[in-house]
């Protein structure tokens, strides 16, 4: 299969392949895959879109208005689509068809993309392993006994295993970065508000953010270009001031001339709180990557994010509270699962929700309801929001002495399926490095930087609000000098 969108665009422009042939290749590979990466595939609908692209590709000038014409993409099943089901990985929405496309789906379709299908995910984006899906766990392409990561596990596994050239994901507390790290691909969560949440099934409204997932930083930048825009249907969406993510992506940092040191002048901060409490084999891979960044000219300094550990309770209070509010719409009345037997309206609500939601979702709704309730709101929710401000201030202070921050995405590589079955709350601790940037609304990404015990390791890059170009450029320059992002799971 193909490694990059750019490679496919070249083949399409030069008529070496048609959009229909390209889509068919991916559809055929999906049929024989055992990763469980997809929830809904509709061959007829995909080929119809591809055929329409082929007609337009007869005139190459159409690529001016549709720059991604004929490129197939998989959408995480958190984004609603008119033609494919939209389940959010839940029994609650098992047979739901949306009356509209999510803005991000619509934007990419208008850029010419072909939808390959909807990818598997942790239910309502709540999870870090993709084991919480009603439709079954997703397997890691590098070792099928291990998790893909979550909640965008289906998207990550699909891209890593050649079941998609690229995919959309969503990231609330690390759900693009962590599965990207676990599956050995690249993924970015942009500044909060950059991409419209209209049509993105809500988990935590002040944290949720869509983002692209692909093998390379340059592909992610290309997709981001077509995903970022202000939307009147989402009042939390912003007019991003720096949308040309490709402008400097191939240039040396600060327009330097030294071809062997493209990162000369770049100041990278490594939080001391991110190092030391990770698996030894992950530490070795991260240290090696930092050395490679230094060899490319970057200057490494130690910084501090002292509230890193408090990001876990702060996030889980805020996210659970907002989830309890967002998921109150699922009552069996207007859409979604309705229980068959009930005595009255209240019983219908309770039975529909209890039967329609999985255990992790129910737990988080209950935690969220409690922390918002009378007598506990100040002690929990308000407290968590105050710590959120302190965490955000820590990042802003850190960026006074460095351009970007790097560190591991997670303390470990992917774990064996079932590891946290008896103690699910322990899985929350694995999010320690990704939650802070989410709480602060910062752009952050993961890129492959090595392997540990045969499984991929991802490096997280975080930067200032609206400075996505800086981390995409750094990642691209790193990927031009290494090949971890091109490794294929067999």
């Amino acid at each position: 299969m193909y490694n990059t969108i750019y490679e496919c665009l070249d083949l399409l422009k030069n008529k070496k392949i048609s959009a229909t042939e390209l889509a068919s290749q991916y559809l055929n590979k999906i049929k024989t895959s055992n990763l469980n990466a997809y929830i809904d595939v509709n061959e007829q609908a995909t080929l119809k879109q591809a055929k329409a692209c082929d007609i337009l590709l007869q005139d190459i000038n159409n690529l001016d208005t549709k720059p991604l014409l004929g490129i197939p993409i998989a959408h995480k099943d958190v984004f609603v689509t008119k033609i494919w089901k939209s389940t959010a990985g839940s029994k609650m929405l098992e047979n739901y068809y949306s009356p509209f496309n999510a803005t991000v789906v619509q934007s990419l379709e208008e850029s010419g993309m072909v939808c390959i299908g909807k990818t598997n995910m942790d239910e309502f984006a709540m999870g870090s392993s993709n084991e919480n899906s009603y439709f079954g766990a997703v397997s890691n392409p590098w070792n099928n006994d291990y998790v893909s990561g979550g909640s965008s596990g289906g998207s990550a596994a699909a891209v890593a295993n050649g079941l998609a050239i690229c995919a959309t994901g969503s990231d609330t507390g690390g759900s693009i970065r962590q599965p990207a790290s676990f599956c050995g691909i690249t993924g970015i969560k942009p500044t909060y508000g950059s991409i419209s949440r209209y049509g993105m099934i809500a988990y935590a409204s002040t944290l949720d953010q869509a983002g692209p997932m692909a093998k390379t930083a340059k592909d992610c930048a290309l997709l981001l270009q077509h995903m970022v825009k202000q939307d009147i249907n989402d009042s939390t969406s912003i007019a991003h001031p720096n949308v040309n993510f490709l402008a400097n992506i191939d240039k040396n940092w600060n327009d330097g001339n030294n071809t062997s040191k493209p990162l000369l002048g770049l100041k990278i901060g490594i939080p001391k709180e991110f190092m030391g409490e990770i698996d030894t084999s992950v530490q070795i891979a991260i240290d090696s990557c930092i050395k490679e960044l230094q060899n490319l000219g970057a200057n490494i300094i130690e910084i501090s994010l002292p509230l890193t550990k408090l990001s876990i309770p702060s996030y889980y209070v805020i996210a659970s509270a907002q989830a309890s509010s967002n998921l109150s719409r699922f009552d069996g009345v207007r859409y979604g699962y309705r229980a068959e037997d009930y005595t009255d309206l209240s019983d219908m609500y309770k039975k529909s929700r209890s039967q329609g939601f999985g255990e992790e979702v129910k737990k988080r709704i209950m935690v969220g309801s409690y922390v918002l309730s009378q007598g506990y709101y100040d002690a929990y929710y308000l407290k968590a929001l105050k710590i959120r401000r302190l965490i955000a201030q820590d990042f802003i202070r850190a960026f006074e002495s460095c351009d970007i921050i790097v560190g591991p995405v997670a303390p470990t590589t992917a774990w064996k399926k079932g590891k946290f079955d008896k103690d699910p709350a322990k899985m929350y601790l694995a999010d320690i490095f990704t939650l802070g940037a989410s709480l602060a609304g910062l752009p952050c990404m993961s890129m492959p930087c090595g392997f540990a015990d045969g499984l991929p390791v991802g490096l997280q890059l975080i930067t200032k609000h609206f400075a996505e170009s800086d981390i995409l450029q750094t990642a691209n320059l790193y990927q031009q000098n290494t090949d971890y992002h091109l490794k294929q799971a067999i």
Partner: protein
Amino acid sequence: MNPQIINQIADLSQIEIQDMQATSNAITDIFALINQLQAMDTSDIEPLNFPLDILDKHFQPVRVDKVLADVQKTIENAPLTEKDFFLVPKVID
């Protein structure tokens, strides 16, 4: 978290508890984690709900309050409807 509190929370959440012991253990574990927040003094700190408020700039757009939804498409996913109405068990005697 004793059963009385769990039942109160379940009622707030409109969720039925199948296994009280398992639910109580799970929620207790989560609160053991969450209670770490109390160690931090935040008495002079303002809460941050919308993350971009940290930048002290107003970003959020507003639009005209106009209905954009297609009613017919909107009700297609409902379990039970009659004309443009969603049907639920009777609530008024």
